[in-house]
């Protein structure tokens, strides 16, 4: 058996925040598209996104981190019914 990678004991992750280095963006089939005119910056999408892929600047929703957005559509579903500022669209069609 050849030399293999040294692995941390029991799969422990020693570096905080290392999930950032793992690109989940490649999993995406549908991508979220924001309609800035409709958005009220309530930030419900920011709270609900499982991959911390909603980018917020100065308290405002400004877009998506496409390196980590996996296209789950939770943000589109959770955006309040009266607003519906996010649409999920096919990757290629976008």
């Amino acid at each position, binding site marked *: 058996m050849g030399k293999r990678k040294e*692995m941390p004991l029991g799969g*422990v*992750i020693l570096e905080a925040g290392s999930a950032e280095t793992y690109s989940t963006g490649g999993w995406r089939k549908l991508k979220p598209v924001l309609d800035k005119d409709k958005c009220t910056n309530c930030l419900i999408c920011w709270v609900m996104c499982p991959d911390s892929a909603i980018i917020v600047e100065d308290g405002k929703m400004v877009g998506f981190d496409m390196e980590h957005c996996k296209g789950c559509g939770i943000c589109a579903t959770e955006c309040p019914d009266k607003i519906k500022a996010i649409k999920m669209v096919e990757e290629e069609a976008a």
Partner: protein
Amino acid sequence: MATVPSTKVQVGLTGNSAVALAMKQIDPDVCPAYPITPSTGVMEEFSSYVADGKVTTELITAESEHSAMSACIGASAAGVRVMTATSSQGLALMHEMLYIASGLRLPMVMAVVNRALSAPINIHCDHSDSMASRDAGWIQIYSETVQEAYDNLFQAVRISEHSKVLTPAMVCLDGFITSHAVEGLTLLDDSEVKQFIGEFKPPHPLLDVEKPVTLGAMTLPDTYIEFKHDQSLAIARAKDVVAEVGEEFDRLTGRVYGLFEEYMLDGADVVIVVMSSAAGTTKVAVDELRKKGKRAGLLRPRLFRPFPYKEIAEALKGAKAVCVLDRVDSMSGFGGPLFNEVRSALYDLEKGPRTIGRIFGLGGRDYKVEDALGVFEELFKIADGGKVESVVEYLAY
């Protein structure tokens, strides 16, 4: 043998009381538990020690064994010393979590008071419970007597927490036969225990907020096999650690513990291999035969996980016929697990013994001296060139 032991307190205790006392002397930081016959006495007595302020342990009375083992995992991950006890269905209910404890490489020690598994329901001794967990990545040490169960717990703490091992360990003793029988034993002083077990130094404690870590992260096909391979190498390394810790314990107490016990094995033509309390009964049969000049012997495995296959083969290579007794059936149609592993270990010997397997004692059925003598009689026939009537079989009951 070492210098005169400094320990001298002799008492009579049941196996469960001795386990509870060992736990008191170890004084683990956390003990999550859910009682089940026949190990109930362990937690009953240990919880008295907690209530009386005799230990500093935080006792967590969980709502099931699955939860108890989950709490053990959380506490060990946090970086403290953890112990618990269970039996039978309780161990079966822990099954899922056993793999998580071992896969995360979390040291802890669990006393397993061996009991049959349902159905049919039965509260008495056999090894169905711990043998069903034999591939869960835990070290398994089997105890013949109350003294040994008591002594094994201290050693298990050291083995499990050893930096080369970092793997959880079970100390098994026979339900009722050992757990509820009063036997004489020699105790260690509290100070000797403290010195022997030392401090637990967790490699990556979750509670170290200066060095945040994540445990239990997902691994994909590009890394899972590496972790499992590392785990496999670690439990294999435990074999030498068990021997080293046993020698150190011998120097402290004068009581000898190896990977297995050899009883009248020198020049033995026929050998019974059996674990736990049944070995005591077998020794009586060996003595009777030796008195008549018949060359019978016993090999009693103490360490079953990891399995010391080389050493066992070496110890049995001079025998002509061997019978491995399993107090459990693998339901494979090919005997029990101990039989299969011993026979496999002997396969590479150039002129190894003929090896048969017999299943005995399920659900607490008695195993008597005449049963052992019957096995030896069959082995002598095989050793004399007789035919092996059946490789695997239930011992007549």
